[in-house]
């Protein structure tokens, strides 16, 4: 039996599409999302002040993305419409990160299988709960896979290396300043230079805020936080001393809990 001219096996097509998408994503810089004591922190090196990689979706839900701007911007706008429509139809508490992750997953999955070109994006949907146990971080890849991350997630160019550095330094219930320090360390290659304040996009989902939990940290506020986090104190002391907000300090006599055990998915697995 002869193969028709130009035949490519489904495996080959999928592999090519995945390679294509992965290459596109790897060109960009990384974005980090991690949990701190009052909620979730988003950090992205981003030289543009107008084109955001991090955004508010709804009261408790934030969005971060890497890859092609026009593609994840469409996802972001669709996500905001989904959330606002649901919140308006039912109640504001009925809008969940899980529902949004499912919407994105089904769309990304359909495009990956049906279109010639898959989206070159990777997205994190983070939802802050009433307590740290209620926080959720969903990472979605270009093919529609959803990863329910615990504690932290990284995506973009050097995701693998960033995740490795995050895993090393991440602790539960860090203060905001410490979490920012960990994120910046993870985003900076060893011996590399940190991005200047003006080129950092930082936002939090703070569970203690009223109404809308999302808040961008910019200007002097961010500078003050960075000054706190880079203060020359040892890691365990800085948690309790360097914060200006009345945060509960972690117990200093017991070793702080470390990141979750087991292999962390860094997006490198095929499909």
């Amino acid at each position, binding site marked *: 039996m002869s193969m028709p001219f130009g035949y490519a096996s489904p495996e080959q097509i999928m592999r090519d599409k995945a390679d294509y998408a992965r290459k596109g994503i790897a060109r960009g810089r990384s974005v980090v999302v991690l949990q701190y004591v009052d909620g979730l922190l988003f950090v992205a090196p981003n030289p543009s002040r107008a084109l955001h990689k991090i955004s508010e979706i709804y009261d408790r839900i934030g969005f971060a993305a890497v890859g092609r701007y026009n593609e994840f911007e469409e996802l972001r706008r669709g996500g905001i*419409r989904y959330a*606002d429509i649901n919140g308006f139809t039912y109640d504001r508490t009925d809008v969940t990160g899980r529902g949004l992750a499912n919407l994105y997953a089904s769309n990304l999955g*359909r495009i990956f299988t049906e279109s010639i070109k898959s989206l070159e994006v990777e997205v994190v949907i983070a939802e802050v709960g009433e307590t740290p146990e209620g926080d959720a971080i969903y990472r979605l890849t270009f093919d529609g896979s959803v990863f329910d991350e615990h504690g932290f997630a990284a995506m973009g160019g050097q995701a693998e290396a960033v995740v490795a550095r995050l895993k090393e330094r991440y602790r539960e219930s860090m203060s905001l300043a410490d979490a920012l320090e960990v994120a910046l360390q993870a985003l900076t290659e060893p011996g590399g230079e940190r991005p200047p304040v003006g080129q950092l996009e930082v936002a939090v989902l703070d569970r203690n805020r009223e*109404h809308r939990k999302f808040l961008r940290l910019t200007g002097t506020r961010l500078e003050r936080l960075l000054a706190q986090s880079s203060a020359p104190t040892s890691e365990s002391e800085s948690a309790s001393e360097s914060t200006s907000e009345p945060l509960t300090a972690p117990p200093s006599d017991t070793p702080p809990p470390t990141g979750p055990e087991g292999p962390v998915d860094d997006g490198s697995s095929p499909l």
Partner: protein
Amino acid sequence: MASHRDLPAGLVDHLFRNTGSSSFTEFVSSYAPELLPPRDEVLATPIGDQVPHATTIVAATIAGGVVMAGDRRATSGNIISQRDVEKVFRADEYSCMGIAGTASTGIEFARLFRVELEHYEKLEGLAMSVAGKANRLATMIRGNLAMAMQGLVVVPLFAAYDPDRDEGRIFSYDVAGGPYERERFDAIGSGSIFARGSLKKLYRDGASADDMAMTLIQALYDAADDDSATGGPDVTRKIWPIVSVIDADGYRRLGEEQVSAYVDQMLEARMISPDGPIAPLR
């Protein structure tokens, strides 16, 4: 609905369709029009008196902000349909609206208006200007004109802190829209004539939020004194007016204890002088 080919980036859900504007109302009217308040339904008979009506709302500017207060009564004709209805709504961090007229439609408008402002802010990445918000509300009220002619009248009062000017601003409307920007203070609803009369004598320029809260509570009492559809403070049930302050720190609703302290103070003074504070003649 248009085909999937019209959607951006090959997405398959119509939630991703761009309507070309950042308006939530515009998007809903193409995506799920049944969710919006009806605009041109023809009712067999006008239902004006059969549905609950919200009554008096007052607002006044203070130094670097604005205060809005509303009574708690809703009436259906001569019946008091609810004693503790809430008619002052937070629209976003720096603005709020009070409603007079058909309570149900008003609450729906307040809900829609809030989403409209947030939706714009999230899509555009920056907040709408105060004038923009006031105009948007005018369009919404204008759209309700057909229903208003059949008895479902809603008239809002909109108050916002303008960060560009560092001052509070008040906008009023009529059934056909608006907005009409008001200096110093304004009132809407059935008791508004009496409240406005009271405010004329009691309003002081550049007052503090605390003083203005007291002034507005006095004005609401005067409205309730002469208008049967406006509720005074309900001492036995402990139902007090809603008082909200907006300034550079954002929107905050005064707590029950704080308002009840003002009300107690006012009632005590009115035991001696039932018509309230006497403004100086010269």
